[in-house]
């Protein structure tokens, strides 16, 4: 019986991959723009450092503060004469990795909490959702900085802290979805047929919430990249010499008058990467929403 209901559910499980959803996504101009942008940024960050003549750690005191397009320094150099382009690409690797890893972790936390809260309703659910609400009372940067100040600030820890402070939205979305699904016929059928809680939660309910989770996860990458940038800019995130888009801006303010490119270029990189993920998230949301066909 449980197998049979699962069979029925397989269809909606694969909803995202159905041609209609895919077609709506491909037709979404912004989403495709975002996808092209982020793939481009990704490739540059992976391949870029090999193509450039300078290592990101090479210090060229004589070439300090070279503006962009000076000799082989396409984006100029910083206060120590290091090649900005090389640093930007390496920083991109760090920032994107932190963003994606934090997304995976926070989505996992949020999904599990939302699933349990939504499925068990009553006491467990109420307690978990109130806990989620109270986490949302803290402004995220304040919470992040407090944790970062108490803990060793390395890339792993920053990822962990970002995840720990940004799972709430996914938890809310999942629990709301689960609560509405819980009363549906196929769940009742599975329950009557004696399926275990774990089976129902992970095999029946979870696959049906995958759409909203994917959307929220994409937008979480955007937020995580921004958060890393904020914390690193403020000096409590990724620590030099490891570059990240945020900590590259850390010193930029004091050289704003003489070397504005030090501030402008990394900021554009952050904005471009975050914009791409926001575009993709928007496209996914529209693509998964069957109503958008009518327009």
């Amino acid at each position, binding site marked *: 019986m449980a197998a049979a209901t699962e069979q029925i559910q397989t269809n909606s499980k694969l909803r995202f991959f159905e041609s209609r959803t895919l077609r709506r996504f491909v037709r979404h101009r*912004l989403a495709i723009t975002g996808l092209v942008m982020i793939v481009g940024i990704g490739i540059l960050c992976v391949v870029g450092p090999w193509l450039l003549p300078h290592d990101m750690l090479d210090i060229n005191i004589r070439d300090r503060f070279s503006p962009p397009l000076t000799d082989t320094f396409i984006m100029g150099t910083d206060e120590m004469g290091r090649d900005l382009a090389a640093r930007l690409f390496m920083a991109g690797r760090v920032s994107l990795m932190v963003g994606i890893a934090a997304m995976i972790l926070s989505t996992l936390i949020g999904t599990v909490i939302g699933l349990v809260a939504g499925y068990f309703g009553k006491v467990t659910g109420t307690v978990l959702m*109130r*806990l989620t*609400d*109270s*986490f*949302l*009372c*803290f*402004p*995220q*940067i*304040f*919470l992040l*900085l*407090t*944790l970062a*100040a*108490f*803990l060793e600030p390395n890339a792993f820890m920053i990822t962990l802290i970002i995840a720990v402070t940004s799972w709430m939205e996914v938890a809310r979305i999942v629990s709301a979805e689960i609560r509405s699904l819980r009363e549906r016929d196929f769940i009742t059928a599975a329950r009557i047929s004696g399926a275990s809680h774990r089976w129902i939660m992970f095999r029946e309910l979870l696959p049906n919430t995958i759409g909203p989770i994917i959307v929220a996860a994409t937008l979480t990458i*955007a937020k995580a990249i*921004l958060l890393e*940038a*904020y914390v690193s*800019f*403020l000096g*409590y995130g990724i620590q030099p010499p490891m570059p990240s888009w*945020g900590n590259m*801006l850390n010193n*930029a*303010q004091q050289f*704003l*008058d003489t070397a*504005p490119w030090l*501030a*402008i270029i*990394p*900021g554009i990189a*952050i*904005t471009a990467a*975050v*914009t791409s993920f*926001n*575009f993709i998230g*928007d496209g996914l949301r529209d693509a998964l929403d069957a109503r958008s066909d009518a327009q």
Partner: protein
Amino acid sequence: MARFILHRLGHSLLLLFLVSLIGYTILHLAPGGPLSQYALSPGMTQAELNQIAERMGLNRPIPIQYLDWFTSFLVGDWGESFRDGRPVLSVISGHLFATVLLVVSSSVISIGLGTLVGVLGATRRYSAWDYIATVGAMIALSIPTFWFGLVAIYVFSLQLDWFPSGNMYSIGDESFLDYAHHLVMPSVVLALVSVAIWSRYMRSAMLDVIGQDFVRTARAKGLTGQRVLYRHVVRNALIPMITLAGIQLPMLLSGALVTETVFTWPGIGRLFLDSLGYNDYPVIMGVLMFTAIFVLLGNLIADILVATVDPRVRLE
């Protein structure tokens, strides 16, 4: 109405309790916990530390310790700053004005501009304007506030010299105009993200309302287009926005911290960062709890406001 307010108040108090639990947990995450301030002083021996621990009641069971902390927290005893020994609450209130000034003026900008953009987007749906506003909002959401601040300083202070690059007033001036002059850039920078969010939500709230039957009734009554738009559509669309304003508060405070840093604005955010630099744990904890309470209060006020403007809510 009274019952409604009591209900919401109870809800907020429950959240306050949970918030305090989280706060207490983080406090104990600090290296050395509440003892850290003594552990850092030079020449402190372990024996002396143990003695202090006993005097502070740190060898009591954790729940007792928590209750002790929470009750003194409730009566306003938030500890003393490590830096200058002043009570945490008075340190915070000394920085409150600057943050409130910044947050309020930026909210005025974002609510005004965001509402306008949202209304225009909804009334001219699918127009070039609507498309630009949609894409623009998504990009605005993606710009790091601090970077936007840096660019603004570069353009409007360093290059054009229109506005000061930081601080809340010029020493020796401190007139209203001087404050206003200093306020422009930080409040606009802080408003950017909120304008984007506000305009998106306003647009979709407008579209929800425009499709409703009572708007058709209003038009069938022969009201002017303006009157239908403002009295029936915008007015109703603004109700969910009150809730949104409450929900957005934590984000606004996060943004304020970053903005205050970039513009050397003497608010709570700066206080917080400075305290982090000095490992001033009592102030760090105090600010963290203070912001959470600020958010709770903001949401409570939003709930009550919604109930006063939407007669349907009062009955529930």
